[in-house]
């Protein structure tokens, strides 16, 4: 089978993302027609404009940006660690952001200001990155990074559990549980303004490591002989991931599987080149997350289905299929 040329694949994914972004603007509880919706978005049509700009636009923007962040960071970490089962989760970024969020909820800070929770989650992600960096040391192997990440993830999960355990407020517990399921609902443009700069900085930094990831295909030693500065690239990946995924998690909560599944699905379509996979995975992540967020609103609109639940339910069986496919392939 001939493979789709890379530029065509990127164009296709970009068009898909654009179409889904537009669809995301058109779906919601208030019934707004296609023409009215876009007229309201760019003009001033009173309530409709408010709905479009304050409710649907942030949601659609966050869907695309958060999805791109998760897909991109998954592709980068799989490439760097040479491990198809890696994603930002192995660095402990998500669970540390969750701890920050939990502390904001339990301490009551989250009720004082709508941005207190995301800021606290971002701080958690930043502290985690510093801790992982310090723990992993200067060793160049990927293992020290995974070990440090897993250690930090275990610690923060334990602290989250402890906080839940000791929390006297049942509403706080419920809130934490819902937050940890991830959602794009009821997010405002303030959330976009908070998260987007962190995500954008992360994207730009990650964009610089593509060639190093290609070199890592042949292992750290060979990569180093090809001029890759291992310690520098590793630090860039760690802090860029913390910024981007920390920013994303801070405003959406924990959304799993996107960073894991998207690179895995797209890898064969880009000839397995890690640098190309980064571009494809960013677009693929945006596509998948926006699709999942549309499903959340269309399938059970009255039940407040959570985004992270949908990505997990869609992602897990997809993974099963992939494993079976790999098994058949390796048996041939």
């Amino acid at each position, binding site marked *: 089978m001939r493979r789709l040329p890379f530029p065509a694949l990127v164009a296709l994914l970009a068009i898909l993302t654009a179409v889904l972004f537009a669809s995301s603007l058109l779906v919601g509880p208030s019934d707004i027609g296609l023409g009215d919706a876009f007229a309201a978005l760019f003009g001033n049509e009173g309530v409709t404009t408010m709905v479009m700009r304050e409710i649907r636009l942030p949601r659609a923007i966050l869907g695309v940006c958060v999805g791109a962040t998760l897909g991109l960071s998954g592709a980068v970490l799989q490439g760097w660690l040479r491990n198809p089962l890696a994603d930002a989760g192995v660095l402990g970024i998500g669970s540390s952001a969750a701890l920050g969020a939990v502390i904001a909820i339990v301490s009551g800070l989250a009720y004082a200001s709508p941005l207190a929770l995301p800021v606290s989650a971002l701080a958690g992600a930043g502290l985690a990155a510093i801790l992982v960096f310090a723990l992993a040391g200067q060793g160049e192997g990927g293992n020290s990074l995974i070990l440090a990440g897993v250690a930090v993830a275990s610690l923060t999960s334990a602290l989250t559990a402890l906080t839940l355990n000791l929390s006297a407020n049942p509403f706080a517990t419920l809130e934490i549980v819902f937050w940890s399921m991830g959602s794009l609902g009821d997010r405002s443009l303030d959330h976009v303004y908070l998260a987007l700069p962190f995500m954008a900085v992360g994207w730009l930094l990650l964009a610089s490591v593509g*060639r190093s990831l290609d070199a890592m295909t*042949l292992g750290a*030693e060979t990569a180093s002989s090809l001029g890759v500065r291992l310690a520098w690239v590793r630090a860039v990946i760690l802090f860029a991931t913390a910024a981007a995924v920390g920013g994303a998690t801070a405003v959406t909560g924990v959304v799993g599987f996107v960073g894991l599944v998207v690179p895995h699905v797209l890898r064969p379509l880009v000839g397995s*080149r890690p640098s190309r996979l980064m571009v494809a995975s960013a677009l693929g992540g945006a596509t998948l997350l926006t699709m999942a967020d549309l499903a959340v609103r269309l399938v059970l609109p009255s039940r407040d289905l959570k985004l992270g639940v949908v990505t997990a339910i869609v992602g897990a069986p997809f993974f099963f299929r992939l494993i079976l496919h790999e098994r058949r392939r390796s048996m041939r």
Partner: protein
Amino acid sequence: MKLSAHDLAVRVANRTILQTIDLTLEPGEFVGLIGPNGAGKSTLLRALAGALPYRGELTLDGRPLAGYSARERARRIGYLGQDRHVAWPLTVADVIGLGRIPYRAPLSRESDADRQAVARALRMTHLEDLASRQSDRLSGGEVARMLLARLIAQETPILLADEPIAGLDPAHQLATMQIFADMARAGHTVLASLHDLTLAGRWCDRLILLERGRIVVQGSPRAVLTPERIAETYDVEARFDSDADGLIVVPLRLIGQHRREVR
């Protein structure tokens, strides 16, 4: 380009692996690095590639190696490691193209020079027919040739190869030695660690014998490969013979310390 080490010492994890290493590699030389397992051959190759912290002097054309940027170094010294694991199923041509990374600006497309280097490397290793094959569909020997082609495509004046013929059949062992010898004739410098003493003696211009982190002797194959020295460093008794093209060294039985341990 001239790569030289003077009183070089390398410590890894607080253990001294190499000490008092003095050597110079001149353009046009194919040098064999021999010595028993654990003698420090791989460490020496990695240190010369600039991948390890060292003490003493290590200079490339008279300038300290540490003074070169990673990219400048990668355009001058190529390194072929023992690790033949390829993480993702890239095509053979794409893997070989990784050797061009030191020449490519960020986000640039591959240049004519890049394409020509890859084509030349494919030709030299006789991999043209496999160029678009995925690397996970290759035999072990084909992977070794692909990685050798990757080193060739890097077009560095100096090539360091760690056991490049391990695991290859006799024909491909000879073909690999031929490629290195040809590259040396063309002005490259080649240093390769080898365990086959006959091939080392017949193809290399010079041998360096390493034992317990020190250079025991270096010089022409006939000066380095003597029955006494092989018995001493390798603990084996070898049959020595020779013809017009050089020595034939066939290890026959264990002697000394080694023999008691094996029993």
